[in-house]
C-alpha cells in the first residue's frame, strides 16, 4: 500500500512509525502513554482530521523511530482500533496488530485512593484479568479496572 495518491494533511513520512485512526479525544493520552514528550525524533500530529469511520480522528507520525510490540500494546489500552504502520522509504512495510498487554508497569493509575501505589513512591503494575479480557487487576490492591475507565499516569 502506498500513500502517494491521497491529499495529505500531515506530511508524508520517509522512515518511522505512523499511528493512525486514533479517536481525536484520545490523542493526548496516546502521546502520554508512549512518553513521546521525551523523544528526540521529529513528530508530526494531526488532530481533528476528517474520518469516515470516526468522524474526527487524530494521527501521529514519528520519524526515525520504530515502535516495539510492547510499546504498541500500550496504545491498545486507550485506542484499541488505532492502526500502526511501520514506514520505510515512504512505504508501509509492516502493519502492527494491537493486542491488549498482559502486563503494564508504570503506565496506568490505580483508581483506588487506598492503594499502596497512590501512597508510596513506586510504579503501578496491572495485569490483564485473563487473556482477551477488557479488565485489568491492580497487582497490589487487587481492585479491577475496565479498559474504558483507565487513567494514564
Amino acid at each position: 500500500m502506498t500513500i502517494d495518491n491521497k491529499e495529505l494533511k500531515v506530511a508524508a513520512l520517509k522512515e518511522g512509525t505512523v499511528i493512525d485512526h486514533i479517536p481525536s479525544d484520545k490523542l493526548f493520552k496516546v502521546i502520554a502513554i508512549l512518553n513521546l514528550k521525551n523523544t528526540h525524533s521529529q513528530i508530526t500530529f494531526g488532530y481533528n482530521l476528517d474520518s469516515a469511520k470516526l468522524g474526527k480522528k487524530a494521527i501521529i507520525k514519528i520519524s526515525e523511530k520504530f515502535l516495539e510490540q510492547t510499546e504498541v500494546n500500550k496504545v491498545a489500552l486507550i485506542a484499541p482500533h488505532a492502526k500502526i504502520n511501520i514506514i520505510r522509504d515512504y512505504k508501509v512495510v509492516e502493519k502492527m496488530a494491537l493486542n491488549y498487554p498482559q502486563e503494564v508497569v508504570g503506565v496506568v493509575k490505580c483508581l483506588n485512593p487506598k492503594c499502596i501505589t497512590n501512597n508510596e513512591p513506586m510504579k503501578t503494575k496491572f495485569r490483564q484479568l485473563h487473556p482477551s479480557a477488557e479488565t485489568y487487576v491492580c497487582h497490589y490492591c487487587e481492585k479491577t479496572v475496565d479498559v474504558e475507565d483507565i487513567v494514564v499516569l
Partner: protein
Amino acid sequence: MKGKSLVSITDYSKDDILRVLSAAKEFEKNPNQQILQGKVVATLFFEPSTRTRLSFETAANRLGARVIGFSDAATSSTSKGETLKDTIKMVSNYADVIVMRHHIEGAARYASEVTDVPIINAGDGANQHPTQTMLDLFTIQQTQGRLNDINITMVGDLKYGRTVHSLIMAMSHFSPTFNFVAPIELAMPEKYKLFCKENKIPFQDLKELSQDVIGNTDILYMTRVQKERFSDLMEYERVKNVYTLCASMLENTRPNMKVLHPLPRVGEIANDVDDTPQAYYFQQAKNGMYARQAVICDALGLI
C-alpha cells in the same frame, strides 16, 4: 525448602493449604514446641488490631521465637514520614519473618517485593487477610472432618467482607456449594459469582435466611453488617434485624452444622446462640493461633 510470603490466599496452592492445615493440626495437639528457638518474628502493626496481633505473637512465643515490633504506626518512624519500603528494609535487617498489618491496600504485596524476608499479611485494608482464611479452613476441617463437598451459607455483608471473598477462593479447591444471603446493598459482587461459575461451583443468591436454607447448611458463616456501609439508616435498621441469628432458628439443623463468625460481632448473633451446640465462633478464634503457628513455620520453610 525455601520459605515464602503469604500475602493473598491465592498465593497458596491446594497442596500448600493442605500442608499448612496438617501442620496446624499438629500444633493443636501440642502448641508448645521450641521449633522457632533463635528466630525473631517482627509484628509490624501500622494499623492497630489487638486481636490479630495477640494471636500472632502468642503463636510465635509458644514456638520459642522472640517477637519485636510495634502495635501502632504512631510509635514507628512512619509517623515521621518514612516510606513503607524503608521501614521494611530496616526491619529486614533484624527479623527472620515479618508479620504486618496496614490500612493501605497492597502494602503487604509491595513489602514482599522490597525484601527477601518472608512477609505474612495480617490484613491490608479491605483487601486480604489470608491467615483468617486459613483458620476458617482449619475450623471447617475440624468440625466437619473434611473440606470436600461442604455446604456453606454466608450471611451479612458479602459486598465488602474480605473474609467471605477469600473463603470462596480457598474453598474453590474443595467442591463446595454456597448460599449467599445478603441485602441488595451488600450482595456478593459479580466478580466472585463469575469466579464460582467459571469454577463450576454451585451457588444461590438469597435475600432471606430461611429455616430451609439453615436446614441444608453445614457451615453458617455470619459476618458483621456495618452501619457505615448504608446511605439510608432506616434501611440499616431493617436489614440489621433480618440477619440476626437467634437460638430458635437452630432447632432443625444438620447434626454437624456449626455457626462461624470472624468476630467481632455486634448483634448479628444473639447471645442465646452462644449456648447452643452449633455455636463455634470462640473455638474458631482459638484456632487462629494454630493456623498462624503453621503459617509462620511455612514462611520460614520449616514444614
